[in-house]
Every structure is written in structure tokens, then in C-alpha cells.
């Protein structure tokens, strides 16, 4: 069955209005985009939408209470809240360095959660 999906591209500030025609999981056409980023985004978005998740994590014994973190790559959009639960369950001891893995393979996505700031010992 043919379906039409209207999307706003998040690839850049242009915010192109993109229309994707698809039959089940088969993409028939992508229109409205101005560049390749839009095409790539639209194809991904209609089948397997993904996002980067950023949040903070509790730190013990550090000069700050919270350490900001991010998923090192995109994770499936429908796993954002599961990922947030995992992030909110852990706390890490200071010191922390940018890039330190705080959760490996979060929710079996294959993606690590890493620290995005340095925390020194208190």
C-alpha cells in the first residue's frame, strides 16, 4: 500500500519540507529536499528514525554534582526513554574525562554513552 509521509529535515537550518512516498518499507520517492543530507535523513527517518541523546549523570566525589553525557552515535528514536532510564540509574566516581565511556552498549544499541565534560576530584 502506497503511503505518503511529510517531514521537516533536521539536517540544517533550511528545514526543507520533504515528502517521502513509500510502499511498506520500500521507498518510492523523496521530494522537496535541497540536498543529499535531506535525502539521507528522509530515507532513514521513515524507516528507522534515530537521534543522539544528551543528558547528565550523577557524579560522586567530584567538584561538580552532575557530568554531562551523550550517546556517542545516534540511537533508535523509540529507545530514547529507555536510554534515559539507563542513564538515570548510574552514577560514576570522579575524576571523569571527556570521552570516558560511562555506559557501554546502552540498551544493546551498540552505542556507548560517553562523558562530555571533565570532572575533577573534589
Amino acid at each position, binding site marked *: 500500500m502506497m503511503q505518503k509521509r511529510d517531514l*521537516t*529535515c*533536521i*539536517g*540544517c*537550518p*533550511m*528545514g526543507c519540507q520533504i515528502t517521502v512516498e513509500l510502499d511498506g518499507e520500500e521507498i518510492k520517492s523523496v521530494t522537496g529536499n*535541497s540536498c543529499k543530507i535531506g535525502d539521507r535523513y528522509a530515507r532513514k527517518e521513515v524507516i528507522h528514525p534515530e*537521534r*543522539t*541523546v*544528551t*543528558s*547528565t549523570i*550523577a557524579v560522586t566525589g567530584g567538584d*561538580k*554534582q*552532575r557530568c*554531562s553525557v*551523550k550517546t556517542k552515535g545516534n540511537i533508535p*528514536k523509540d529507545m*530514547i*526513554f529507555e536510554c*534515559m532510564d539507563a542513564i538515570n540509574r548510574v552514577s560514576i566516581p570522579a575524576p571523569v574525562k*571527556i570521552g570516558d565511556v560511562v555506559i557501554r552498549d546502552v540498551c544493546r544499541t551498540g552505542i556507548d554513552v560517553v562523558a*562530555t*565534560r*571533565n570532572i575533577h576530584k573534589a
Partner: protein
Amino acid sequence: METTEMMSYDIVIVGGGPAGLAAAIAARKNGTDRILILERDKELGGILNQCIHNGFGLHTFKEELTGPEYADRFIQQVYEMNIEYKLDTMVMDISAEKVVTAMNRRDGMFRIRAGAVILAMGCRERPRGALNIPGYRPAGIYSAGTAQRLVNIEGYMPGHEVVILGSGDIGLIMARRMTLEGATVKVVAELMPYSGGLKRNIVQCLDDFGIPLKLSHTVVDIEGKERVRAVTIARVGKDMKPIPGTEERYTCDTLLLSTGLIPENELSAGCGVEMNPVTKGPFVNEIMETNIPGIFACGNVLHVHDLVDYVSEEAAKAGEAAARYVQSGCAEASGDRTPIRLVATGGVRYTVPSTIHTDRMDDLLTVRFRVGAVYRQAYVSVYFDDERVQHQKKKIMAPGEMEQIILQKKKLLERPDLQTITIKIEEDDTADPMKGSSDGRNMSHTNESSGAADSTAQADHLKEA
């Protein structure tokens, strides 16, 4: 105060955020030894430390970073270059003679004689008091940036049921952030008929979570004496006044305000720096110098940016110019001819810089500006005095997104009598000999003849999320 001996530095930088850091690094790279950064917070990095979302640095580092990561790239350079800085330090006054008065707990009150001063204080959020919202003054009303700091730095949740007024990027980002942390964001109300934030933020921060955005709406009542209990919003007419009968009431415990940023220029005004009433920041020339020789400005204190990469770029220019100023023995600006004046008109609200001394400008000079309304398929036109030298079609321009053109020094030098450069938006393209050649999808300008320069449409694509 008179008992303390006055310190002396070549360059004093007020503010250790993205602008101050980039200015300091550039000044050191250009050979200035004695640089001091004064920062009010307990750490360097400024507002980036609480901007934990990603999308920063695509332009500068060709990768997508979070705010703290972007800041750290600069902080590490400051450490490596042994640039001095004082934290927890409040600057009280800057004199026109470039004596900086500051205080902190360790040194008490102290004064510094500076060869040059770089203003990099950033901006503040417009508070509730500036919005004329009726109702009580209960707890639970925060500016979006305050809420961002509470959640991301302090680890506190400001509330659980949230209404947001204003659709600036910080408000949108906080709608997502609060939702991820378990709060319910009921609605985002925006006074204007368009969002002040990026479309991609509307998708990622609102649409992803089913949060409604109500354009042309404002808050007309706040209920609750001790704590916010409910907020009523209403549609506004063309006159921006609420339309009776359109009220909708939302029960909530929190109201976040994302209603605009204002450059923080108390210190600048105090020393006699001339201010642009449009940007609420100083007027600067081609090297980011204010009307007071040796006092420079960069970053959000100059004009509010939406892309930190441009802050870093602008600040580096200020740092370099300050270094040159100090090394030249603080000689007053050269230029035997009067500077060229940049005029913003016809939909262009302001330009930075606002004057150009051609002899001191770089080969290519980026002029940044904002438009006052949403324009589709309109042209950015540049006039050298009365002659149009650039006419570039843009698919869309909006107040929330900074625009730029680039001027070439050699083109300006070809016209020794040039007095004004006018930048305006033209919706009618009848005067355009290239008419019809632009298919609307072609972002890459239809330059006319001796054109001023290319404007890099590409750079517009790099705005942070």
C-alpha cells in the same frame, strides 16, 4: 582601594565564555604576552557549560560537539598557552582610560591598567518583569536558561508540568530536556506568527515528543499565590493584543520564559562606549573596536548569535586586533580617510560591523546582520553608495537566523570616494538583469557584475541545534 598597587596587563578580557576564550587565544597567537581573563563564574566556558545538547562546532571543528566539549577545546588551549585568568571575579567598572576595577574573595578589590580591553560579557535573558504578564508572582516561573542551569549543572528539576512562553532555541531545547527528565511539557506559546527558533529544533524538541507549538499566542494569566497552579494563554491579533474568547487554561507548576536575549552592556555603557539601540550592543568597526580606541567587543555582548562558531570567529578577530593595537604602542586608529558607513535598511535591522576603515580591513570582511521579518524568495542587496553591486536570492530568511555577506577589500579600494554601503532586502526582482536565472533551489546567489563578494550560503547550514 587607593592603597592597592595597580596591576598592569597588555590585554584584559572581561568574560571567560566562548568569546573571551577565543579572543585570548587569538591575542596570544598574535604575540601578546600579558593577557588576563576575568570570569565571574567558578569555571571557564560560560554558557556553553550548561548547553549539554549537541550541534556545536560543525564549522570550527568539522564535527558535532556538545557545548561543554566545544568550550573544552578552547579551555585546553588557554591552559597550554599559560594565559592567566581569574575566576569568581566580578568586574565593577571599566574607565575610558582602560582601568578595570574588579573584585573577588581572594584579592579583594583591585585595579588593572590595561593596554586594551576586550568586552566579552555575553548576554542576559529577558526577565518576566520586562514582559508585562498579569497575575501573581508565585514560585515556578523561570527563564529557560535558569531552568537549563538548574537541570544540567545543579541537577535539580524546576517542576513537573510545564508551560513554555517563547519559542527561542533555549525554550525549545528545554522543552525536550524537561521531557527527557520526566516532566510533561503541555504547550509552547509564541507571540509572533513564526518561531524564533530553528525548524530542526521544532522537529527534534517538540514534534518528536508531541508538544504543541501555538504561534500568535501569549500568556494572559498566571494563577497561584505560592506556586504556579495554572497558566492561561490566548491568541493574539495583528496588533499583538490578546483576542477575548480564545483563552485556554493549562494546569501546571512551572512556566519557562524563552523570550529573548539582551547583550549585557552595563560596563560598556559605563565607560562611554557608544551603543546600537537595535542590537543593544556596541557599535564596532571592521576590527571589532568600539568608538573608544583600544576597547573591543565580541560575542553576545556585541549582538546575540545563534551559532557559537561565529562567536569564536568574531572574537578571534577582536583578539588579533587588540594584540596589534597594543603592539603598535596603542596608537590611535589609522585611516586618513573617514570610514565607510554601513547602512541597514529595508528589512535589514542592523549590521556588524557598522563602519569600515578600508586600510585596516582584511581581504575578505564578513558583515553579519538580521532581518526583521520572514522573507521568502527575496534578495539581499548590497549598494555601494547608489550602485547596486550585489543581489542575491535567498529561499528563506527569518529573524531567528543570522545572515551574512562578505565584502572584498579590493572592491572597496577601487572606490576611494565610497561613503556608504547599504544592505537591504528587496522582494521585487524587476531590476535584476539576471531575472529568471535563479530557480529558487539554487542557494548560490545571482551576483551582479562587479559584485561585492560571495555570501556563503553554505555557512548558514551550520547553525547549531
